[in-house]
């Protein structure tokens, strides 16, 4: 054991005597390992960010999207395909306590893009048209004023709640509540000479600053009553999305069954194969997202793995050069009694010390870069968690040592096989 420690010390001393080359040799390993650490850290950070944002919505939420979709795949609506199978009658049916007893609140949604005008200021933003129940199915923090009531939502009053950024652009001095803004309706017939119309809305509330959730800036949007958005602005008669709050998380799965039954009844569907809607809870959403991020992580991990192999080949190259440079030394060592095993171990140890050092430096570099990215993400307003998993570190160290053994073995065996006479005569 004492001898082994001594050998490691000698090897380190030896490698330090040619610092520049040793460093260049392990640069590939450093980059590869740092890559692995960063990718795993970013993957975990992004995953926990997205999952955190989803769970913030509440675990007792069920969403209904138009169009059928695969159990674990994203619904078609995600890809921008408009499916018009959900209607307000469906919403009414779901609201029916006798049919879905566990649903406490139901909100329907349509959304689109609009231009809001106040005086000379105008802002292009997106709108969400929903019911007054929105405040109960989603966490909404109102800074000033109020959200619209169920009654205002139902009657289709021309009232509007502004996102934080929208309010700031239109009313730099505050004082928004009670003001009248105009929403310009994008008129598809404009080209035929018809003047696009605009509808006045009274500002009744301003949302608190929310930042970015699920990759959308929550402050750059406005809320208007559902029927106004659906009929007057979009001019459609279908519902893009329904969100239902269930009384208790335990009842989510049975409630989903109820909702599916109600919708099949409504749409006169007998066979589940022909469903034209998708009922999803957050567990599904989390499952989908996790499978997407896992795939990404495997893919990126594979790339990092390839860079480790390239780094390993670099090690092998330099070790071969080292062996041929030290041919005389090998001959001398053999002449004074070194066995093949002694020589093999000497060079194997050298490449393992190299890759291990590369691994440690790579881990430190990876942690540093991941940390800087986390700081940057937080600075950009994301609720980013800096995660370094001990598994990633163990993996990186193991892989780098394994790289040293795998790619150091051939040069070491080559050194061990050298004939002492030939080696001693080598110039």
């Amino acid at each position, binding site marked *: 054991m*004492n*001898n082994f420690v*001594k*050998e490691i010390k*000698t090897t380190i001393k*030896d490698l330090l*005597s040619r610092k520049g080359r040793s460093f260049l040799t392990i640069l590939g390993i450093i980059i590869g390992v740092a890559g692995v650490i960063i990718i795993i850290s970013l993957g975990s950070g992004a995953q926990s960010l997205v999952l955190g944002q989803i769970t913030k919505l509440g675990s007792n939420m069920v969403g209904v999207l138009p169009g059928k979709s695969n159990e674990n795949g994203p619904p078609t609506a995600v890809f921008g395909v408009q499916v018009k199978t959900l209607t307000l009658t469906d919403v009414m049916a779901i609201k029916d306590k006798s049919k879905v007893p566990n649903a406490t609140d139901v909100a329907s949604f349509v959304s689109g893009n609009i231009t809001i005008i106040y005086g000379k200021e105008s802002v292009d933003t997106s709108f969400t048209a929903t019911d007054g129940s929105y405040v109960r199915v989603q966490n909404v923090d109102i800074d000033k004023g109020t959200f619209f009531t169920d009654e205002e939502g139902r009657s289709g009053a021309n009232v509007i709640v502004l996102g934080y950024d929208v309010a700031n652009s239109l009313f730099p001095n505050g004082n928004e509540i009670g003001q009248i803004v105009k929403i310009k309706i994008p008129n598809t017939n404009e080209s035929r000479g018809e003047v696009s119309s605009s509808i006045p809305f009274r500002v009744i509330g301003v949302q608190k600053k929310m930042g970015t959730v699920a990759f959308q800036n929550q402050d750059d949007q406005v809320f208007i009553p559902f029927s106004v958005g659906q009929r007057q602005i979009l001019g459609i008669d279908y519902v893009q999305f329904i969100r239902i709050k269930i009384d208790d998380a335990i009842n989510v799965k049975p409630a989903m069954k109820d909702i599916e039954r109600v919708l099949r009844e409504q749409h006169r569907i007998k066979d589940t194969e022909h469903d034209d809607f998708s009922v999803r809870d957050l567990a599904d959403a989390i499952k989908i997202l996790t499978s997407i991020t896992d795939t990404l992580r495997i893919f990126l991990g594979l790339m990092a793995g390839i860079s480790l192999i390239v780094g390993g080949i670099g090690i092998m190259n330099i070790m071969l050069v080292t062996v041929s440079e030290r041919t*005389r*030394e090998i*001959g*001398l*060592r*053999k*002449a*004074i*009694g*070194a*066995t*093949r*095993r*002694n020589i093999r171990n000497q060079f194997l140890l050298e490449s393992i010390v190299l890759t291990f050092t590369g691994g440690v430096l790579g881990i430190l570099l990876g942690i540093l870069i991941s940390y800087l990215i986390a700081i940057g993400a937080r600075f950009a307003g994301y609720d980013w968690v800096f995660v370094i998993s001990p598994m990633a570190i163990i993996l990186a160290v193991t892989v780098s040592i394994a790289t040293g053994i795998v790619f150091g073995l051939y040069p070491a065996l080559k050194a061990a096989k050298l004939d*002492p*006479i030939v080696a*001693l005569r080598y110039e």
Partner: protein
Amino acid sequence: MLIELKDIIKNYDNGGVITKVLRGVSLSVDEGEFVAIMGPSGSGKSTLMHTIGFLDKPTSGTYLFDGEDTSSFNDDELARIRNERIGFVFQSFNLLPRTSVLDNVILPLLYNTSKANQESRAKLALESVGLGERIHFMSNQISGGQKQRVAIARALVCDPKVIFADEPTGNLDSKSGATVMNILERLNKDGRTIILVTHDRGVALHANRIVTISDGQIVSDVLVPESERIHSKEIKEDE
């Protein structure tokens, strides 16, 4: 008999072209002898020494070392003999660069079965060649004569029966050469067998027996009369 060679033949095969380097060499060396092997370059004297020193295997013939037939020894056994029973001194010193004098001398002990007291054993060997004061110098910070004395200390550190010296003074000035020869003589006087390869008659005459080899065969094997022997005095180098 310490060393007994019978009909040693060594051929080198260079891609089908066979070079006969040793053509039936028989030689016996007794413990305590000081033998010089002489011959022109290409005569096979280095190959002979490498064969006796277990750095090279003969193509045919038997080699008894200390009564044991070594022809069936495997690589590990040969490495062990080289480590424990013999020591080498080379013309070009072959010290490890960027390594201290002490660590150079410790090197054979790293491959030795007895790992105890490495440092004190190495220091003792260095003191016996008069370099007890220079143990922490780097191997490239000392003179050629001192390098060869470090190499002798390295050859001595495992307490071998035989020391092989291949042109040990070949790269040295006469003064340093004399010091090296003086050390070898002293080691021989203490009972160690020395086998020296040289083409320099002045160096060979330090031995008590000169074996001359030519074209792969021994052409003469004579004892040196005491009157003709040269003895180098111990010269204090300007250290």
